[in-house]
């Protein structure tokens, strides 16, 4: 994965993993790779990989089970929750940038409908 090196890498990996949960690529209750494996997969520093899981745990998306590894939380709703959260986040950022260009919310709505066709 190509990283933007001026933004913390761990956040970018967190987003990538959340995206996979949101799109169903990673399922609820699924076992996630170990810290070392994650580091190898993404070609990042093992400390960064450890931090990724710390953050995901804080956000309630995964949990560490002693001796077994790290798993996505066993929640039916987890995919929906993460999807919604990410959608809101994307929308917020989009709106911010559009408003900075001078658009009103109605105008933005129209553009989206047009583009959505």
């Amino acid at each position, binding site marked *: 994965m190509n990283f933007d*090196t001026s*933004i*913390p890498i761990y956040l970018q990996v967190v987003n990538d993993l959340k995206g996979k949960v949101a799109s169903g690529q990673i399922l609820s209750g699924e076992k996630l790779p170990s810290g*070392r494996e994650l*580091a190898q997969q*993404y070609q*990042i520093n093992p400390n960064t990989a450890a931090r990724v899981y710390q953050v995901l745990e804080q956000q309630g998306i995964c949990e560490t089970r002693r001796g077994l590894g790290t798993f996505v939380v066993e929640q039916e709703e987890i995919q929906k929750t993460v999807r919604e959260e990410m959608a809101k986040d994307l929308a917020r950022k989009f709106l911010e940038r559009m408003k900075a260009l001078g658009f009103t919310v109605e105008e933005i709505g129209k553009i989206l409908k047009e583009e959505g066709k």
Partner: protein
Amino acid sequence: MTLCTKEAEKGYGRKKALQGVTFDIEPGNIYALLGPNGSGKTTWMKMAAGLLHPSAGGVLWENHPVCWKDRAEIAFLPTEDYLYGWMSVNEVGKYYQDFFADFSMDRYQALLRQMELDGNQKVRTLSTGMRAKCKVAVTMARAAKVYLLDEPFNGIDLLARDSILQVILASSDPENAIVISSHLVEEIESAVNRAIFFRNGLMAADLDIEELRTREGKSLADKYRELMQ
């Protein structure tokens, strides 16, 4: 075990390659040692590897100044072309096996395969790039406590660099520390977690890179430019 550098100085006649640097190398980290040519990076590495005596201060390992015995735990990869030309790639491995208890011949052979090196070829017949790969393979086949890699990517093509970086990442564990001195700041950015900057024989910065990104929104390359202008 921490490799502590305290006020290390090294002078050659009137010139001072190191003017007093102080920092620690702690296990579980991969460090980038950055700075322009002549800033003292290689001098520090040789001092830390027990190849140079400091003019003042020094480097401590297990609470004593680094000495010849510590070479058994501290692995140093010089920039120079130091392998004996008359040896074959396999014989280089045997040499390391003879002198380093932490050397794994299995690991070496695996690395050779990964880097597509022929074990029977004599070093003098290898191209610069292949010799560079061989050096890296034989050094990383050791299970050292500290790895000091002086410009390990010199003369190596892109794919081989990726491959070496993979090996370095795979070698990192909470018990060891890896220090990479390189000019390829952008390439090693995601692999290293701490950076030490040298300038004119002095330390310009010692920082955690993710914190740099969080607090200042800068990449390692950006910070380098900022410090070295």
